[in-house]
């Protein structure tokens, strides 16, 4: 018997909060922050139970909620600025969050419209609905650009920035080839490509070593095999295999 666990999917912490607000039929301008924070944290806890990896955004929101909760508990006006401390200046610690929720909800609501449009349009088949009819030419240029614009800006770039030479580390293929042969010679059982490279190869070393392997293969001096696709590359001296 198998059973399924229904997990509501939320796009993010704002989505989850809106869900809680709706579920509890709460006035969004007057969120009981302690209650909502508890429910929010319960959700996170239940997800962790199911080993669902939590996006960091959910945790950030949890921290924000707890901060708002803490601020709401503070006695009003702690600062000693005196005269300006009138009642109406008091800012609701929830205000910013409410603003974000309201803004997010506008887009969340309109999303269903796009879903509907998508569904409707999917019923209309036309050019481009058939993969083989998709234009395979070069990708179109951005609307307000022409090939000439690109050409001109390329020319301008050339004038601006003279072509520079990048210094190449002096290490020849021959040198590396001898090294690899020597290393393999000491290990009749062979080496993996990774072992050959050692701890942290530079990109150049990586490329050089790979070229060396190709060259040695061409010369028939080594044999190379992989146990699985994208697995480790094993290298053995061709002569070593003959000997054993």
């Amino acid at each position, binding site marked *: 018997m198998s059973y399924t666990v229904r997990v509501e999917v939320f796009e993010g912490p704002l989505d989850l909060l809106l869900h809680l607000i709706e579920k509890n039929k709460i006035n969004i*301008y007057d969120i009981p922050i302690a209650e909502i924070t508890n429910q929010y944290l319960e959700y996170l806890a239940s997800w962790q139970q199911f080993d669902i990896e939590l996006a960091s955004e959910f945790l950030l929101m949890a921290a924000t909620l707890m901060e708002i909760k803490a601020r709401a508990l503070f006695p009003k006006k702690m600062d000693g600025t005196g005269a300006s401390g009138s009642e109406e200046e008091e800012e609701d610690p929830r205000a910013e969050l409410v603003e974000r929720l309201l803004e997010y*909800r506008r887009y969340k609501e*309109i*999303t269903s419209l*796009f879903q509907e449009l*998508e569904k409707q349009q999917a019923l*209309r088949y*036309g050019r481009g609905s058939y993969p083989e009819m998709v234009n395979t030419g070069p990708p179109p240029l951005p609307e307000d650009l022409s090939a000439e614009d690109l050409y001109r800006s390329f020319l301008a770039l050339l004038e601006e920035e003279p072509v520079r030479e990048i210094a190449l580390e002096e290490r020849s293929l021959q040198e590396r080839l001898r090294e690899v042969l020597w290393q393999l010679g000491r290990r009749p059982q062979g080496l993996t490509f990774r072992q050959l490279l050692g701890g942290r190869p530079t990109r150049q070393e990586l490329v050089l070593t790979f070229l060396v392997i190709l060259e040695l293969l061409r010369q028939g001096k080594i044999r190379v095999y992989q146990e699985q696709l994208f697995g480790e590359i094993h290298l053995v001296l061709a002569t070593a295999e003959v000997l054993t």
Partner: protein
Amino acid sequence: MTIAEAKAILEALLLASPTPLTPERAAEILEITPAQALELLESLQREYQARGSGIEIQAVAHGFQLVTAPRWAPYIEKLLGPAGTGALSHAALETLAIIAYRGPITRAEIEAIRGVRSDRVLATLLDRKLIREAGRRDGPGRPILFATSEEFLRYFGLRSLDDLPPLPEKPPAEESAGT
């Protein structure tokens, strides 16, 4: 060129055009004015409709395209198999909605509204050509601006962004009516 001929040519252009045919482009080809081209395209559209054709001329993405009539979709599916391109995820639709209404907009601004990282969903949308890069915002880092594309209009069957209804308003703050 008679009107009947012009319409026949337009019909042929509609079939051959890989992207929605704009009245401007049609006018260029037929050497008539865009207004004339628009009138002819619309009259052609009405003819298809009146005749109950299996094909309709849809006004979409600033132009016109030939598509099969939606009511016959089940038969097309029998022919081609179930709809090809997968529907967009909720995250993708949500992000598109934000870009459609607020674009050109930067990734950071989108993320501020959604409250979640959006780099991957943006990559998907770029990949499907539903959005495009629309320059950069002046300021620190000169972030890339994203806007919806012509393909976006086509994908959702919209003539232009003006076809979209206004965003839902925020509800009035009932309890703060005290002032």
